[in-house]
């Protein structure tokens, strides 16, 4: 997340909420498009957007890691196990059906499209910027603290858990073997980790008070971002497009 430096271009430097509006529009179109070619077109559009943002490769890596493998799995399994009659081919006692394949492809493309829209958003937007934009939009400072410190705590605790795991296995706690043996390693790894971090909450709570966390007065944002005129324009345009799309879709349904 933080380690990768974003390329600075006309898309990545947009205000987070502008990019969020794009992403939401894509999700809207994705969940209301039922035609398989339509879905493919959306996937192509997201890829084009990722390419224009200069993050095509990273985007696809992330897409593959999160939903890619799942899509492959779904396609394989549903093709064989989804109820259907139109047999494509048989493998032993299992038969691949056209219904299954179509179901799998539609489902897979949905996952790729909706997942893709979100992954694109957070590939071109840092979480820090996103949270800051939400805070400036009126989200409470407490809520934004919770999110920001979560983003910091997760890697810290992950790292500590790996250290504890190593120490445990060095001390002879089994982390391999049958399921009960492995399950027994779970608690002694998790508990010390949690304990040390929860014990620290008192001091951290007071640390925050000592830095004026609960003060009810306008704050300064040392690191700051601002929407520019083009952001306003783009969000408005996206909004109009979304409304037009919904109206068009409804009219189309009523007519056809």
């Amino acid at each position, binding site marked *: 997340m933080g380690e990768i430096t974003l390329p600075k271009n006309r898309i990545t430097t947009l205000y987070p909420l502008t990019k969020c509006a794009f992403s939401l529009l894509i999700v809207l179109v994705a969940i209301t498009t039922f035609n398989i070619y339509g879905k493919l077109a959306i996937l192509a559009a997201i890829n084009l957007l990722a390419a224009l943002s200069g993050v095509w490769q990273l985007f696809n890596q992330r897409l593959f890691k999160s939903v890619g493998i799942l899509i492959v799995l779904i396609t394989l399994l549903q093709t064989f196990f989804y109820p259907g009659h139109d047999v494509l081919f048989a493998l032993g006692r299992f038969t691949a059906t056209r219904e299954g394949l179509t179901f799998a492809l539609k489902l897979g493309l949905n996952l790729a499209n909706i997942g893709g829209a979100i992954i694109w958003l957070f590939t071109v937007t840092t979480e820090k910027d996103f949270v800051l934009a939400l805070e400036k939009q009126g989200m409470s400072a407490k809520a934004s*603290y919770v999110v920001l410190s979560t983003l910091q705590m997760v890697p*810290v605790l992950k790292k500590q858990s790996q250290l504890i795991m190593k120490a445990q296995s060095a001390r002879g706690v089994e982390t391999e073997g049958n399921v009960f043996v492995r399950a027994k390693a779970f608690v002694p790894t998790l508990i010390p980790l949690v304990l040390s971090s929860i014990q620290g909450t008192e*001091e951290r709570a007071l640390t925050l008070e*000592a830095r*004026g966390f609960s003060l009810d007065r306008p704050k300064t944002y040392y690191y700051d971002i601002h929407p520019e005129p083009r952001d306003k324009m783009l969000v408005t345009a996206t909004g109009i497009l979304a409304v037009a799309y919904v109206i068009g879709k409804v009219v189309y349904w009523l007519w056809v």
Partner: protein
Amino acid sequence: MVMGLIDLKNVTYTYPLADEPSIKDFTYSFEQGKFYAILGANESGKTTLCNIIRGFIPDFFQGELTGEVLFNQEPLSHYTLSELAPYMGYVFQNPFNQITGARDNVFEEIAYGLENLGVAKGDIEKQVKDIMEMTNIMSLADKNPFELSGGQQQRVAFASILALSPDIFIIDEPTSQLDPQESERIFDIIHQLKNAGKTIILVEHKIELISEYADEVLVLEEGRLICSGKKHDVLSDISLKERQIDLPETTLLADALRKAGYNIPEKLITKEEMKAALMAHIKGVSQ
């Protein structure tokens, strides 16, 4: 009784679910611009006392507090914890717990308190830079505070409070994870703060540094104030040794010399003073 900056009158405090009070009938007046050192064995109530002075007790820790705690002659309970932030800085023992988690680089971590106070951006920039230079952490500016060593985190925590420029500094063992050189630097900064008119209340085990820099010393034992006053009066009191209080080398040496029959002046506590006394003695002998 003279009214000070912070006055505690007959303060007794018991933690929730505790059987016995942690601070017993404590009365003291802390004056503006002085450097107070608090000594005592483990569990003698040093940190509890600091928490009372900062208002964390009883507000956050609950429990039962009797007696009066006044800040500028006004009850401390009139302020919320955050409202006191610009007046009273507090540096805790554990460095890791003092990383707020709100910011992902050291510069912004130090700026965080000033942001909450609504200080103008340009002033924040200057203030944070000055403080980072003072505490020798300029090179850490872009690092993630969670990825620092304990000693580095300790300096960042101290810098974060310095940045707020409060009138009173309550500091609980700020050098526990620092090497002698860095500890000396922290004490040097504390000394500068005192010279700038700040009030310092410090819990610290490094007795030699205290004998050199502090003005007054308070000694706690099982929650009671057993001894207090000018550092030369307190730290030269050899009877404190029996009560498990660390005393400066000079005090111990002076005591040993006196017992051996040498005529050593009273109330020596620093190495410099001992050196001067010994030089005078040797001169006297050679004449």
